[in-house]
């Protein structure tokens, strides 16, 4: 009613969906949870000729483990990912990050495939996927391929998917952990209200050995530019240190020295950079404290 008119198809298999997408051409759009797409349609910012509704494609709604990897079907809702025991055990950062995604109603509809394909630099899940070396399966009538998320996220709302490709699975490898170390992780974000897209945020995974030395670190940045970002330079500052406050501040500074967040009414570039720096600092400190306390 509010969106412009479109054709609607509701396939029940990936194959049918892929065929519809291939036949539909550039104007066809996949509909998953609809929590990003429907607002765009309602505001008439997008006017696809055909919507292919994935919600009936039940083969996309699984969470499996296999060969040291977690395979999450594209249609799994945010709330299901966040509440899954294997996610809590192996990727607590993902569960924590999902707690910042919007509100329960939206988390009950929004999907991991949708947020990955949407490629919004302000979205939490893509940052965690990047820090976790995740991959996606892209499926089309031409076959299927794996894409590392680092290659998938091109720019804001832009991925390296071909127009006829569907993300069917998100694959997250288990973290390789050195024996005798303890890992801590934390997601810290800053928004004006509960559930809003963040003004900025930072995420950290740190691995401490028995001496309290950081053996491995990953630092992610939310809302830092045109795509989800990870700072290898910040990780390098942290690695082989004891994560003293000064070191962590320096790492946060390094992480944000070159970023160019998008400004809007809730904060301009300079302020967002400050916020992301502070959130990154807090994320690393919190992750380190969790590791020290042995609470993951």
């Amino acid at each position, binding site marked *: *009613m*509010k969106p*412009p*008119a479109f054709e609607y198809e509701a396939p029940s298999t990936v194959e049918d969906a892929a065929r519809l997408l291939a036949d539909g051409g550039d104007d066809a759009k996949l509909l998953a949870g609809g929590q990003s797409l429907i607002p765009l349609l309602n*505001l008439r910012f997008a006017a696809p000729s055909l919507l292919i509704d994935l919600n009936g494609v039940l083969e996309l709604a699984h969470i499996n483990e296999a060969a040291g990897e977690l395979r999450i079907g594209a249609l799994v809702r945010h709330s299901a990912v966040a509440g899954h025991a294997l996610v809590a055990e192996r990727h607590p950062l993902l569960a924590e990050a999902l707690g910042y995604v919007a509100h329960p109603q939206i988390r009950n509809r929004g999907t991991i495939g949708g947020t990955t394909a949407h490629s919004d630099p302000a979205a939490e899940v893509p940052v965690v996927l990047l820090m976790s070396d995740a991959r996606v399966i892209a499926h089309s009538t031409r076959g299927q391929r794996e894409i590392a998320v680092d290659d998938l996220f091109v720019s804001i709302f832009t991925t390296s998917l071909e127009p006829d490709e569907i993300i069917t699975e998100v694959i997250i490898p288990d973290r390789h952990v050195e024996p005798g170390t303890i890992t801590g992780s934390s997601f810290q974000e*800053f928004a*004006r*209200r*509960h*559930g*809003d*897209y963040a*003004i900025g945020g930072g995420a950290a995974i740190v691995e401490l050995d028995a001496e309290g030395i950081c053996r491995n670190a990953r630092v992610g940045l939310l809302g830092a530019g045109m795509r989800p970002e990870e700072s290898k330079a910040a990780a390098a500052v942290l690695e082989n240190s004891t994560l003293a406050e000064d070191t962590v501040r320096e790492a946060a500074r390094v992480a944000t020295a070159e970023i160019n967040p998008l*400004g*809007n*009414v*809730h*904060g*301009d570039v300079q*302020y967002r950079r*400050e*916020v992301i720096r*502070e959130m990154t600092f807090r994320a690393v400190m919190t992750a380190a404290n969790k590791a020290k306390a042995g609470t993951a």
Partner: protein
Amino acid sequence: MTLTEDPTTTADGPAKEVGNARLRKEDARLITGKTTWTDNMVLPGMLHMAFLRSPVAHATISHLDVSAAKDRPNVVAVYTGQDFKDEQGTIPCAWPVTPDMVNPGHPSIAVDTVNHVGEAVAIVVARTRTAAVDAVEAIDVDYENLPVVLDMEEAVKDGADLVHASTSSNTSYHFVFDAGEAGTGSDTDAAFRDAEVTVSRRFVQQRLIPAFMEPRSAVVGVQGDNYTLWSATQIPHILRVMGALTTGIPEHKLRVVAPDVGGGFGGKLQVCPEEILALLVARRLGKPVKWTETRSESLMTAHHGRDQIQYIDVAAKKDGTVTGLRVRLLADMGAYLRLITPGVPALGAFMFPGIYKFPAYRFECDGVFTNKVPTDAYRGAGRPEATFAIERIMDELAVELDMDPMELRRKNWISAEEFPFTTVAGLEYDSGDYEQATQAALELLGYDELRAEQKRRRESGDPVQLGIGISTFTEMCGLAPSRVLGSLSFGAGGWEQASIRMLPTGKVEVVTGSTPHGQGHETAWSQIVADELGVPFEDVEVLHGDTAISSRGLDTYGSRSLVVGGTAVVKAAEKVVAKARKIAAHLLEASEDDLEFSGGKFSVKGTPGAGLGIQEIALAIFAAHDYPEGIEPSIDAEAAFDPVNFSFPHGTHLCAMEVDTETGFVTIRKYASVDDIGTIVNPIIVEGQMHGGLAQGIAQALYEEAIYDADGNLTTGTFVDYLLPSAADLPTFHTGNTVHAATSNPLGAKGVGEAGCIASTPAVVNAALDAVRHLGVTDIRMPLTPERVWRAIHQGGDGGDRAAEGSNAYGGARTTESGIEEAAQ
């Protein structure tokens, strides 16, 4: 917490409904939506309207071709301003605040120029709403841009670009209240000449959007030359008169119905262009039409609120005694004058002195046209602006004098013994006790412990600092005295009407002219009538909002419903009892003087037990087989009430605020308020009104701002950018009451609809400043976004210079300069 006895327990006599925390009887249907929301209405053959709205803020329409839209499927008609220019008249402005106020007129649909983004340019009428919306896209229109006027301080300068070519300046009016000239105070210039200390500030009241929950919606039904307009309006009665005058439909041929209405906050206190256009289109086509706005349309085109630049000076002695107050406002009218656009700041004029004994006071206000949607009433209308300015500057004066801010207030406020007190603005405050409310609020907050914690955090250099903000406020409400409103050139009176119909089965219909839009009138009025007539609460039904049922009324705004409308109900009930008494005397074969009326029953004094219930009398007079000679066979009654004074709620609001100096994020740690709203009819309704008011007042301080970019586009056009807080963003409210009955109505009620919204904003801002003043911060522009707070702490100023990208938000507040001098340039 309530500081009075539980009002339901009385020494003797039946339990009282007034004071009882009844759950609201209207809530089930309102909350589930299974009710008569206007948009739920479907009439046979009903057509749908959709608008093409201007994407530019100021332009002439150089080309407008609707022919392609007419050819779209299911389109019945497409109209432009040319089609209605001779019959649309102008949206009425009922408050010409000065005799020479300039009103360039307000067409409902643009004829050849557009003056704000969102102004209606064409109307598509189609068989479905979708068809109408789709066809709008087929309209071909070109605009020739004119200079856009957005900044009031620029707009009032000589040679400024004009919003309206027909006017000689952008100033609509210059309104002055001078206590010296009015005889209510001494000479203000002298007070400032002789002052030992003066403090001057420039405060900005940002633009706000009323953001009612139910979007505006209108349906027009046609029966021959009779029209019925259903509308999500606060003011069916006023809309009927104004709608008739504007469209030329005779008043007796126009019925207006406000069915259940989902909130308004002043935003539906309007004669909307779309309502007028729905009537014109229905008349032109002779067919029923409906229009319901989208949320984007609502944010962009329904009237906004606040938007003032306030220059305020206070004069005082070194010991803190205030000696003079001077206020000069620039008030943004937007592009046109709507129903009470110019009156909102004028209503505030009388509240700047607050609760303080200023001997001298002068107020001046310029109403300024800009290329933005018009402003008009928004919860508090004029009084929040005034309260903010006075409560903020009292803190600034305290800083200047190095005095405790509460001590400074105490030194200057009206003491309990001084009531009734005539203020320097000429108002007579009827009752209250500021000290008592303040003491209670301090205890509720845990003031001393929080001050100790503040000290600790300050000494340890904690990155999270704590502050406490004070607002000791009063307000004028219960809009009312018709003669006073007349003296202020308001276009209507302030009386209210009620009637009571006693049905044969003893059930009671109460007809009120005070139309609710979510407040709980049905419950409160039922409680009042249950007590007055001694009938069960459940036996009372309250009818409202339909001019064919409730023919007289002045509707709901200005916290007037209970104070004026509730009193009219009391007066009508008294008449019912008086009429029933004659019949009871007749049937009981007793003299009227020997009858007493209690618990719904007439009985002969000294012989309790035997008697006649008023519900039985209702049946007896319906049958009318046996009733006294010389009276009419009815105990129904009608009454109108017009109080002689406003009512003056007051209270003390305290906010404890944590400020994260590293991110600028502010968190309300604790909020305590003690309000005196006179007699409480229903504590739950009062609590609800306070909570909602607090949420909106806090939202002005922290979240909400309607921002236009440099071209006059509304940047905050969705709820993603126009931020309303939810319960998750707000603290627990610790509320309490003191009770000093109002003296201007028999209920003793003072009005609670706006108090929370009026009082809270300065308490919140004062709290944030109190937390970071030692870091050199002297002001922070509202709303206190984290970015602004952070900038104020780390970069100086008030954080507002880069208010938002491309914003019209008046640069930074220049708090170090004298406001008055600034304004005089």
